[in-house]
């Protein structure tokens, strides 16, 4: 039975004109398809690599490994205050320019210039080559032609994005479309208390987005996380979203409120009662200068009274969850092969004023982690069975509409890329 209205077509899937037949998941178990995705998607789209708060001063920098795009970038705040990104490659002999101890690990810091560990070639914060060791030994090297290779970099609402396609002409704002525009004005800059988690996951990157883009699984996989009576009730109820929406390659699901705060105290565990907090965040929302009703239009788009959380999927690999009690969670999925990826989950809160608020936030963070552990391990079980190719047709329900959209979007990017390649004149 329906708790929330669906579009007049009778389902979200048909409303978005997405095929309702079974899907194959061949796009998640093929090394060949992954190789195509690397060029078609990860070297061509805007990728979120961090936030401006990670670059507090002139000379602040961090590196980001983009294995799927066959790249490493160094993101830096210049002496002019601008945020730029460069390919992390020294122009002399191709050494990785910025790294500490382990070449494959990310690093961060503050500096006045980047000096290559190999032969001490030096670059300023704007990427200009400023020093060549024993310059007179070289053959007419014009330093102005050997600066770091710059990567398209733009900032949206404090989120730093890079685009590795030198021919890209789509501004970030256009790429992020109506969801990006409709979220603008959300007070992200006030949520500076950060807890970040990282995991190596044994599945295709799209499968983890699938897991977080539907909540149909929540009453079942996470049933053991609830009080027993509540678990049975939630299972019987099942899951229905308030609404879904799609805009180009991006999508979103708007969800009802769950447990913040609960109608009856008996619904939640004792620790949640004692701390007035849980998976949905501390129940008492901190002041962020906006009431729930004043949030930007893309947030709680149906303006539902029972709204609890919106989950935006910005293609390809950036998810943004905005929770009613004024906190934010982001997910990133960085592929490392067709069946592995690095998952990052980052919680952003208003900085706690006192010890009680700090412990309330700890409960929200630890809850996210415990649910994530169940999700991550289940994905490995899914990946191995998909790879067995025992079954290759899978029915998806209407609450899984965003999964269909994600996979068809990825396939569309790959198809277009192949067409472009076959149309290009042989060089």
């Amino acid at each position: 039975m329906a708790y929330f209205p669906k579009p007049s077509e009778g389902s979200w899937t048909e409303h978005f004109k997405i095929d309702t037949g079974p899907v194959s998941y061949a796009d998640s178990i093929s090394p060949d398809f992954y190789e195509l995705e690397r060029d078609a998607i990860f070297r061509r789209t805007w990728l979120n690599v961090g936030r401006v708060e990670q670059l507090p001063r002139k000379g602040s920098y961090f590196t980001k490994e983009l294995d799927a795009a066959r790249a490493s970038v160094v993101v830096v705040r210049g002496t002019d205050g601008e945020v730029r990104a460069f390919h992390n490659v020294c122009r002399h002999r191709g050494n990785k320019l910025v790294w500490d101890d382990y070449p494959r690990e990310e690093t961060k810091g503050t500096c006045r210039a980047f000096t290559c560990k190999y032969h001490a070639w030096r670059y300023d914060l704007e990427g200009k080559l400023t020093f060549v060791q024993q310059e007179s030994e070289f053959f007419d090297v014009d330093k102005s032609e050997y600066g770091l290779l710059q990567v398209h970099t733009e900032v949206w609402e404090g989120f730093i994005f890079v685009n590795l396609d030198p021919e890209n002409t789509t501004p970030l704002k256009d790429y992020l479309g109506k969801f990006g525009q409709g979220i603008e004005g959300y007070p992200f800059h006030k949520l500076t208390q950060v807890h970040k988690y990282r995991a190596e996951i044994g599945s295709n990157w799209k499968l983890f987005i699938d897991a977080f883009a539907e909540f149909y699984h929540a009453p079942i996989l996470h049933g053991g996380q609830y009080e027993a009576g509540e678990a049975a009730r939630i299972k019987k109820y099942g899951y229905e979203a308030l609404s879904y929406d799609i805009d180009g390659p991006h999508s979103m699901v708007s969800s009802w409120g769950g447990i913040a705060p609960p109608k009856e105290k008996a619904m939640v565990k004792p620790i949640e009662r004692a701390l007035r907090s849980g998976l949905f965040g501390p129940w008492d929302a901190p002041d962020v200068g906006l009431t729930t009703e004043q949030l930007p239009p893309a947030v709680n788009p149906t303006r539902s009274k029972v709204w609890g959380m919106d989950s935006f999927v910005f293609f390809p690999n950036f998810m943004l969850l905005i929770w009613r009690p004024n906190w934010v969670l982001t997910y990133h999925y960085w592929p490392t092969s067709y069946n592995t990826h690095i998952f990052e989950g980052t919680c952003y809160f208003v900085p706690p004023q006192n010890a009680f608020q700090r412990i309330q936030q700890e409960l929200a963070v630890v809850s996210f982690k415990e649910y994530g552990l169940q999700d991550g391990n289940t994905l490995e079980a899914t990946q191995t069975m998909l790879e067995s190719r025992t079954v290759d047709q899978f029915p998806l329900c209407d609450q899984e509409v965003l999964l269909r959209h994600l996979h068809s979007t990825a396939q569309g990017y790959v198809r277009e890329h192949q067409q472009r390649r076959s149309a290009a004149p042989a060089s």
Partner: protein
Amino acid sequence: MGNVFPAEFAALEPFADWAVPGERARYAKRVSSTMKELQAFYDVAFPLLEQSTEYLENVSLDGIGEEDKHLLWAFCALVTVAFPVEAWGQPRVPDSGPSSIDAVVEPAV
């Protein structure tokens, strides 16, 4: 020898080894403990937490003292210990096998 926690929380002193900085370390301690050990800590710490909302609300994080810092970490440990004790009856979340999700950025306190 001084106490680890503020005087009002003397009952926690036998569990001072739970006053661990960092979620990663607290989680490691939880998964290497027995349910009996987790239950013993929970049984003492949880009633204290329930009674201490007002105390904790009056502890400002700016310039927090050593004893209050230890108390904060112990209650953060209680948060992670509450999951096995209240819900699962085992130190690890069900169906998580060998998987891990590690804290890489955490608040200073």
